[in-house]
Each structure stands twice: as C-alpha cells, then as structure tokens.
C-alpha cells in the first residue's frame, strides 16, 4: 500500500509523467475509469471515492505534510554530530557541497523516499555520480560528475574545486556505480537517533516547492 506500480496499473506516487494531480481529476478517474485501459469505473458511492482521493493525496504528500514522530531537535544534533551529514550536505548555508543541499528536503521528498535514502541503495541522482579521471599529464582527480557528454566532463572534486575537461585531455575516466550516500543509518545510528533524524529532515522546509494550480499538468481527456 505504498502507491507503487502494480502488475496492471502504473504508480500512484512518484515521478511518473501525466499524473492526475488535482482532487477533481482523481475523483473523475475513479468514478468513470479511463476508457481503453484496465482502469474501470468503480461504481462506489461518491463519499467513498472522495476517501480514496484523500488517501492517494496523502501518499503523495511531501514529508513535511506528514505527522512524523520523533524529536526533530535531537535529530538536528544527530545530523551535525554522529551522522556527520554536514560533511557532504548543506543546511541553511552551512555544510558540504558534494551532496545535495537539504535545506528544503522536507518539502521536496515523500517520507518514504526520505527513509529509503537513509537506508537503501538508491539510484544516483543526476549530477552526483562519483567519477575518477586521469589526465594525459598523469594527474588524478576524484569527485562527482556534475555533467558529462561525449566530449567533455565537469567534475566537482572532494575539495570543493571544479575541474572542467575536454575528454581529449583525459587518459582515463572511471565512473562509480554506487552513490556516495551511505545507506546504513538505521544500523549506524540507534533506533531513537534514526527516528529523530528522519523527523528533523521531514520538518526541514525553507519554502514550499511549486504548488501546482488546479488542473495544471493534468492529462488531457
């Protein structure tokens, strides 16, 4: 019951294109189905359909919209202390830059995504893939690839310095296959510390990301 895709239908939660975003669009789809697909008209009373709509919206909500148990204040201490998160991540202008800025993370991720980021190996976000290159002059540079095409690569090294290469200047390029983000926080931290860290991140909001207007981005029907 996490909104992921099933055998016969796409995910209700995530980054899928052409989501039905508004309550009205969801209601319409559940009530009338999607012609030509396996999505039937459910024939439920309207009140029940609205309950389903609310449930789907809740699954899609960002972490900051969800009641997350835990001591966020203590979580902040874990974040900057034992968790050593500031070494890679920036929070409100302080911290490292090799990982994504987390100042607004509570508004950007669902709670589930947040937990998975801390506990499971996940796909490496664009712009954060580890890379090691050796130049033709023999210099080795390690960091993350901010961008890359067939002819050039832009690397941020572990000393916060950018290196911009034409690939003809490089002898070797080795791409990392796993994210630099540790995913053992549920083990490296105590259960209480982990829960508090999650609570702190879920509450970490500077500004709500673009709230789509009713109907904006809707699939045409």
């Amino acid at each position, binding site marked *: 019951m996490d909104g992921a895709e099933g055998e016969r239908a796409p995910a209700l939660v995530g980054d899928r294109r052409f989501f039905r975003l508004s309550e009205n669009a969801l209601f319409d789809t559940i009530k009338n189905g999607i012609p030509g697909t396996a999505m039937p008209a459910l024939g439920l009373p309207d009140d029940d359909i609205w309950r389903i709509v609310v449930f789907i919206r809740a699954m899609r909500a960002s972490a900051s919209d969800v009641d997350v148990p835990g001591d966020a204040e203590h979580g902040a201490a874990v974040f900057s202390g034992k968790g*050593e998160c500031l*070494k*890679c991540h*920036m929070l409100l*202008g302080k911290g*490292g*830059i*090799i990982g994504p*800025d987390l*100042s607004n993370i509570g508004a950007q991720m669902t709670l589930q995504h947040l937990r998975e980021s801390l506990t499971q190996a996940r796909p490496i976000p664009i*712009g954060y893939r580890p890379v090691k290159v050796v130049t033709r002059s023999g210099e080795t540079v*390690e960091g993350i690839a*901010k*961008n*890359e*095409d*067939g*002819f*050039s690569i*832009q690397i*941020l*090294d*572990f*000393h*916060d*310095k*950018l290196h*911009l290469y*034409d*690939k*003809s200047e*490089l002898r070797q390029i080795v791409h990392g296959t796993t994210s*630099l983000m*540790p995913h*053992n926080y549920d083990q*490296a931290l105590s259960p209480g510390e982990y829960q508090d860290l999650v609570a702190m991140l879920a509450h970490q909001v500077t*500004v*709500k*990301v*673009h709230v789509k207007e009713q109907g904006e981005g809707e699939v045409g029907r």
Partner: protein
Amino acid sequence: MKRLALIFLLGFASSLCAQITDKQLEQSPDSDWLHYNGGYSSQRHSGLDQIKLSNVGSLVSKWVYHVPGGGGLQCVPIVVDSVMYITQPNEIYALDSRSGRLIWQYHHILAKAPDREGPNRGVAVFEDKVYFTTTDSFVIALNAASGNVLWQSKIAEASEGYHSSAAPLVAKGKVLVGVIYGDRGLNGFLVAFDARTGERLWQFDSIPKPGEPGSESWAGDSWKHAGGATWLTGSYDPELNLLYWAIGNPSPDFNGDVRQGDNLYTDSMVALDLNTGKMKWHFQFTPHDVMDWDGAEIPVLVDAPFDGKMRKLLVQADRNGFYYVLDRETGQFLHGSKLARQVNWATGLTEQGRPILVPGIEPSLKGTKVCPSSTGATNWMSPTYNPQTGLFYFVALEGCGLATKNTEQFRPGGFQYRGGGDVLLKDDTWKVYVRALELTTGKQVWEQERVGSGSLGGGLLSAAGGVIFSGELNGEFVALNARTGQPVWHFNTGQPINSQPMTYMVDGKQYVGLTASSDVFGFTLFEPEKAAAK
C-alpha cells in the same frame, strides 16, 4: 560505519575553490571577466588581443547553451577561472565556459511574484560566492562551485511592486544592489549588504525626505511617489573609495505638473562613499525630466588629460541626447555636447551643465514632437572606452516621439505611474548607430548604422585586438574596426540581442561570450577539431 568513514576520508578539506579577492576585482578584465561591465571603471575594454583585426574573420561559434525557457535574456556572462555564470529572472546557471555544458543551476522559488518577469542582468562574484537578485527583491549568495544557497536577504518589499534586476556590484566586501521600478512611483534606493553574511549595512535613498538637502526640489508631497530607480550597475573608484551610481527618472514620467522643481536626485549621477553610503556629490543631467530620460546610463571612469591636466574623469552618454564629461573627484561639469542629431528640447548646456531649454518642447495634452523620444538617444546598453584609440563608443538612436501627458494618479501595489507617454515616430530618420566619440571633446569620429534594427539592441565590448563587438537587435553579432567603424566580421545569432558581449581566456584561447534572446554563445577563432573523444 566503515563505509561512512571511507567516504569522509576522501577529503572535505577546507574549500580550495577559486577565491576572488578585492585585488582581482580591482584589475582590468583579462582572462576572467569579473564584473557586469568588465571592471570597476566600466570601460568594458579587455587587454586580450588574440582575436584581432587580422584574424577576426575566422571567429566561429564554438558552443551554444540554450537557457531553458529563456527569452529576452539580458545578462552579461561572468567568467571566473573558466566557469561562466549566467542568469534569467530567478535562475542562475554555471557553465563550463569552454564547452557551454551545464555544471549547476539554481532556481529561486517565489512566494508570489511573477517568475519570469524580467530582465535579470547577471551576477557579481567575490571569494567563493556568486550573487544575484530576484524578482521578489532578494539578493542571494550562492556557493560558486555548487550553487548552494549561503544566505539570502530582502532588498525591498515585493508586495509594494519592487523588483531587482541589475547585476550587483561587489566592492571591499560589500554587495551593492539597486531596485526598480521608478515608472511605478516607487522611490529608488541603493543598498549595501555584507558580502559574507548578508547583513544590511546602509541604504542611500534616491529621493530626499522632507528636511533633507534636495527635498526643496519636490513640490508638496510629490516626493512620496517620486521614482529614481537604481536599475543599472554602477562603477567604483577604489582610490577615492567612491561609488558612482546613476539614478533613474522621476514619477510620473511624463507629467511634471504634479512635481514642480528639479526633482533631485532623479536623472542624476551620485558619488557615494562606499563605507557609509553618504553622498559626496551629485550632478543632475535632466532637471525636472518629463520624458523618462532617466540618467541611468553607465558611468565610465577614465583617467585622461583634460585642458592639459590629468584628471579623474567620469563620462556618460545620456538618454537625454547629451554626452557629459565630469570630474569624478568633485562632480564638476567639464564638458557637454550633443550626441545625436535629433535633439530639439534643449539648444545646449550652460557652463554648469544645465540644459538650455526650448520653450514648449515637452509632453502636452494634444501631443508635442520631442527629440529624442522617450526611448532616448541612447539607453542602458553599455558603452565602451578603448584607451588605445582614446575613443568612447556607444549605441545611439536617432528618433523622436509625439509626447502626451495625462493626470494618471498613483496607485499602491506596483502599478504603472507614468502620467502619459509618447508615440515613437518611426519615420525615415529613425535609425540606430554605433558611434565613436573623442573622449574629452565628444566630437564624433565615426558612426556605423545598425541597419534593420528598429531599436537600440545590445551594448559594446572593446578588446585590445582593435575590435569593437556589437550585438544588434536584428540578431547580428558584429565586429567593427575600433579606429574606423568598418565591419570586419558578423554572425547571425537568429534572435534579438539585448545584452552586452564580454571576453575571456581559458587554456590560452580567447573567447567572446554573448547572451542573445534565449541562448548563450561562446565564440573562438576557428581551428580544426581534435580527434573526437567519444
């Protein structure tokens, strides 16, 4: 924890990122291009001479970066240690300046203000930070290597209609930012923020409050909705520690009846102490302006002989149709002369530089032909000065307007408050030129028409190779011989150019950077492509 430890062993030493120092910011543009107008003097003259008259014909576009959703871009690219920073409203991009590939981008999320209401004219840089302003009137400092926000500070109340669009200027640890819109009856000001912390340090108000010097130049309560925007980037003299900022037009733009008086410090150049924001001197180009001729054009600082004596000069080609030479230590008026053929509102300037008015040439209820038009004989597109030729180059518009006035009232909330307008008389005489003037006499040495351009277009760049680069509204990017004005190269960008070119050098190769309407271009001299690396 083993994995955690391994990762943290990889480094995370203190930042070794490119650190821009005060000393670097004080230098004339060379490999890097660190200011909107190249350097504190705003001369826009680069010492790079790899691209020169003898080879400019082989200049080619090396790369193009399409700004997502971009349109009407007006930013000047800034290049630091081979990283290029460009902006569109509320968005900033770091590019690899050799390839045009994106390194990072940052989008400022707005609470209410329109996202793409522009323009935005670019960034400033200092230490490991890059600064830009937003349409909801914030100045934001970002880490130059990653785009992470380090601090953001409010400049003005966006709900009142204030925006900020000019590229900031950084001097001695202070970030200077101005505001728009003077055309909405919003009083302008210039603010200094601490570049490291974002703390607000001082504010200079364009419009003096009752009791302050200059307040007598505003009748009644007219000072309350008076304009005087600070909508372009100023210049700075580190030796005198003075900022030179040009102040915009009074409100309502076209109806002066409700604001009798000279209306200080609109349409003026003000010299401000960097440490305190206190005004040392001012010079008003157009007292009691009724044609939207805000004096916001770029102040260009040049040390040159005047009447046989070395002087610290400030020169400005003004929207009102006159070229001015001032002493920038004192504000003394030294010279003024017409920079356009079609100037009918004043016959000349007095010994103090005040215009000698022609009676009746002002907006009226039924309409009056006024030259130049409200677009101006020139405008915000940057001029350039080449110390090798001793010539000052600017973009000129010959044209008049049929100007009317009305009794529009001020409305709070950022509505237009112009009190009239003018119909641009686009007859056969309506033409755009690049002109070269002798620095201290204002005497025209050459002009080159921007054929097919209906309005001014982009500004100018001078480089030591003897070439002036010029972006036209019709899309042509042109190189002119700095001594003769003859075109020596051109490239059709296929889109209107409303920005000023710049130049930089990476790995021994000189580039010319240009923002056109929706794309950024990097030009270099042609050389056969190396073997593909793919």
